[in-house]
Structures are given as structure tokens and as C-alpha cells.
């Protein structure tokens, strides 16, 4: 066959495959917006669910998700950044360090439900935190820890060694060099990784299933040892566990959830693209 024609056919097939990936996601988002927008109102966002979740709002689920995400970041961000500074700047490059790095990279690919089991075993049972915000936050935090560490390590590694040498050659101590040169230049990468990790935490259901999520709890938590509702679990419950829910409530919940998640992703993309424009080495 004529190679030009072959090429045309091949490219057409590739294009079709690309459209198969991209078009459904646009349809899904459009569908959620179309069916969910009607449900969104001040009342929906700020009131308790009523009548076995078939009526009313989703306020406690929104608050619950925000608490969980906030707790996870509070725990995982400092620990993750410090740990990655340790691994890239301080740890000796020996067999053990390499093993640790490998284990952390691989933990990022461990299924979220496994983190749920771990949270149940460690926080809920062993440490007696019970099913609570603190157990759920820590579980989510540990789930995103490998993501933050991996992204931060990449960002730290990408800061040229010559920058470190300049700072040291001027008499800067190791920590001064890290604080004034390495971390500022790695910050956009660290933030991008963190935000992506957090957006994943906000949408995950499996890790909070047995560590915090309440099926139906129409009140706000009083302490970190309380259970809460959470958006992703609420969506799961509405769409599979409760019969005859108005579809607008379910779609509305989905819309709020993807809005939160996509806003976080947008934020990450903005940081990344602004940084790319500025980066010149």
C-alpha cells in the first residue's frame, strides 16, 4: 500500500483512540454539571440532610471532607517535605537509603483500600483512636505521604548542584543552603505534588470507609475523635445504598465533589505553568 495512505489511516486510528479517551470524560463532566447544577443552592450546601438523606443538604459531608483533607495535609506536608529533604540532602547514598526510596516510590502505587486496612489496624484499633476524624486524617495523610515525598524529591533533585556549591562556597552552612537556595527553587514542584496528592485524598473513599466515615450523621463533629460524613462516601451511599433518592441530590453531591477536586488540580496546574515560564536553568 502507498505509504502516504497508510500513514493517513494510521493517524486516523490514533486520533479515534485519543477521542475515546478524552470525549467520555468531557461528557461525564457535562452530565454531572447539567444534572447537578439544579440541586446546588445555598440551602443544599449549608443544611443538614433530612429524611434519611433523601432531602435536605450535604453540609456535614462538605465539612467532613474539608476536616479530613486539612488534617491529612497538616500531618503529611511537613513530614513529607522534611523526609524528602532528608533523603535527598542528608542521607548517605547507600544500599539502605536506596531501599527506602524504592519502597516509598512503590507505596505510591499501593491500593487505597490497603491504606484503609492499615489505618484500621494502627489508628482505630491499636492506638484506640476509634473511627474518628483523627484516624481518617492520619490514614489519608499516610496515603498521600509517598506522593508528596516522591514529588518533593524530584523537585529537590532538579535544583542544580551548582546552586548548592555557590552557596557553600560563600561560607553558607548546609542548612542555610537548603533553606535559602534549594527549598525556594524546589517549592513549586513540592506544592504541585502536594496539591495533587491532596486532591486525590479529597476524592478517595476506600481509606475512610473503616476509619472515619459515617453513613448518616446529620450534625457537625464536636472533636477530632468524632465520626463525620464525607463527600465521596456520601456519594457512594446515595448511589448504591439508599433507594429512591432524587437524582438531583446525587448529581449535586457529585458536582460539589468534582468541583472541589478539580479546583485543587487547577491550582496545581497554575503553579506549575507559572513556574515553567519563570524557570531558566
Amino acid at each position, binding site marked *: 500500500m502507498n505509504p502516504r495512505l497508510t500513514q493517513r489511516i494510521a493517524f486516523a486510528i490514533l*486520533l479515534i483512540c485519543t477521542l475515546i479517551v478524552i470525549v467520555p470524560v468531557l461528557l*461525564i463532566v457535562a452530565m454531572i454539571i447539567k444534572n447537578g447544577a439544579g440541586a446546588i443552592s445555598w440551602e443544599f450546601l449549608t443544611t443538614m440532610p433530612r429524611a434519611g438523606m433523601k432531602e435536605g443538604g450535604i453540609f456535614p459531608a462538605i465539612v467532613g471532607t474539608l476536616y479530613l483533607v486539612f488534617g491529612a495535609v497538616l500531618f503529611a506536608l511537613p513530614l513529607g517535605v522534611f523526609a524528602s529533604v532528608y533523603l535527598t540532602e542528608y542521607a548517605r547514598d547507600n544500599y539502605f537509603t536506596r531501599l527506602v526510596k524504592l519502597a516509598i516510590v512503590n507505596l505510591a*502505587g499501593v491500593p487505597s483500600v490497603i491504606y484503609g486496612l492499615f489505618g484500621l489496624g494502627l489508628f482505630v484499633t491499636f492506638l484506640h483512636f476509634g473511627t474518628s476524624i483523627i484516624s481518617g486524617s492520619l490514614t489519608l495523610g499516610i496515603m498521600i505521604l509517598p506522593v508528596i515525598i516522591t514529588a518533593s524529591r524530584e523537585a529537590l533533585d532538579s535544583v542544580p548542584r551548582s546552586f548548592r556549591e555557590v552557596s557553600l562556597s560563600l561560607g553558607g552552612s548546609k542548612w542555610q543552603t537548603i533553606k535559602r537556595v534549594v527549598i525556594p527553587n524546589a517549592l513549586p514542584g513540592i506544592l504541585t505534588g502536594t496539591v495533587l496528592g491532596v486532591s486525590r485524598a479529597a476524592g*478517595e473513599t476506600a481509606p475512610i470507609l473503616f476509619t472515619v466515615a459515617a453513613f448518616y450523621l446529620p450534625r457537625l463533629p464536636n472533636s477530632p475523635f468524632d465520626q463525620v460524613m464525607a463527600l465521596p462516601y456520601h456519594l457512594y451511599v446515595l448511589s448504591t445504598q439508599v433507594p429512591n433518592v432524587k437524582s438531583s441530590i446525587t448529581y449535586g453531591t457529585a458536582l460539589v465533589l468534582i468541583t472541589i477536586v478539580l479546583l485543587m488540580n487547577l491550582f496545581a496546574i497554575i503553579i506549575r505553568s507559572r513556574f515553567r515560564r519563570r524557570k531558566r536553568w
Partner: protein
Amino acid sequence: MTRDKRNQRIREFFIEKTISASGIASVVIVVLIFVFLLKDGLSLFKIESIQDFLSGKLWYPISDPPKFGILPLILGSIVVTAGATAISVPIGVASAIYIAEVSSPRIKEYLKAGVELLAAIPSVVLGFIGVVTLVPFVKQFFNLPTGLTAFSGSIMLAFMAMPTIVSIAEDALTAVPRSYREGALALGATKWQTIYKVTVPSAASGIVAAVMLGVGRVIGETMAVMMITGNAAVIPKSIFQPVRTLTATIAAEMGETVRGSDHFYALFAIGIVLFLITFFINMIADLYLHREKR
């Protein structure tokens, strides 16, 4: 000056200790994940042999006496994963090629944003959409008693694997040095010949890694699978039957178990199996990624 210097030294000492402590803490966490999974999971094997657990054909965890055979669950995971892989690998790799090699730079940015959008959508949302669209469609189109089947699950999971496959394969293709392509084009090859004879083979190990990571993602996926595959713990005879995966079993049953019961331990034991499978797959992917770099 000297006092300032001394204070600075003391401060740095504590900061550096904090950093080391965080490094050690992250190591401890890695170890704890293994320990806690093993601690509860291995308790099952006091009452059940590993062989019966892995090859037992019946999963009746709450009957009396209970049966903890996870073969149907393993097969359920395999069937769904195989289906999802069969769909997502060709389509994912093809669109990676299109995005990396064919599309114009401007279109490329939009396509990549689309792939990232897909990656960002939580699995529970995809599960919900699957329940309201795909499941009734499958039921009607194939004239089945229920649309909650392995087939529906495979389609849904294919969409979750695709962003991973596309973005990592695309990175691998983009990393192929331009001189390779120019060499082929200079010899009179068409763009397409260059792609399949030079670019794709050069990026092969990265593409393999992309596929492995996609498969890892699919095996570990929980919520969408639980919502769509029907959750029947029987050995699947066809893809148009309800199946139950390892992940869904843990997620669906953990809420109803008594802590410290055999059933509880059995779910942790499933966790170990799952952990080993995904860890193994990720290791292979990592190996291929590193080969690419060298």
C-alpha cells in the same frame, strides 16, 4: 557576632535533627504498614492453611463453618483486570502516540489537560456515572438479567487505567532523542514509519512501565469496581456475569465484621495478597522505568 553564630549553630542542630527524625519516621511508617498488615493477616493462617485460602473455591465468610477460599475473588480480579487491560492498553498507547508524535503543540496541551482531567475524577464519581449510564446500557444491549457484570467493570476500569498509561507512555515517547527521528526521516521514511519503526521501539521499556502501572492501578481500584461489578463471590464463567474482586471484598465486608474475628483476619489476609500483587507489579514497572533512564 560569635553569640549569633552560636545561636545559629544550635538552631541548625535542632532543625537538622528534626529533618533526620522525619526521614526516620517515614521509614518507620513504611515498616508499620507491612507490620500491621501482616500482624492481622497472618492470624488467619492459624486456622486456615495458606493453600486452602488461596485455592479454596468457596468464599462463605459468615456461614457456619465459614469458608475462606479466595479463588473466586482472585479470578474476579483477574477477569476484570484482563478486560480492562485489553481495552485500555491499545487505546491508551495509541493516544499517547497521537499526543506525543502527531498532534500540534497547541492541541497537545488541550489533550493533555483532558487526560489530567480524567485522572483527577474520583473513582466514586466514575462509579456513580457507571451505575447510571453504563450498567443499564450493558443490561439492555446484551439482554442480560443484570448490567452489574465483569464486562461493565472492565470498561469503567479501563478509563481509570488510561490516564496512567497515556501520561507515562507519552513521557517515554517524548524522551526519545530527536536525532533518532531525524535520522529515520532523513532516510525518506514517512512520519508514521518513523513512529512505529523507530520512536515506539526506542520508548518500549517506558511503554511497558506505563502498562504495568496502569494494570497496578486497575487491580487496586476499589470503589468503582464495588459499585459496578455486582459483587457475586462465585467463580466467573463468562465476562457477562457479576464478579467480586479482592478489593471490593475488603471494602464491602470490613464494615460488618467483628474486630478480631476470623473473618476480620481473612480480610487482612486478602489485603496481604493484594499488597504483594501490586508491590510486585510496581517493582517491575520501576525496573523498566530505570532501564529507560540508562
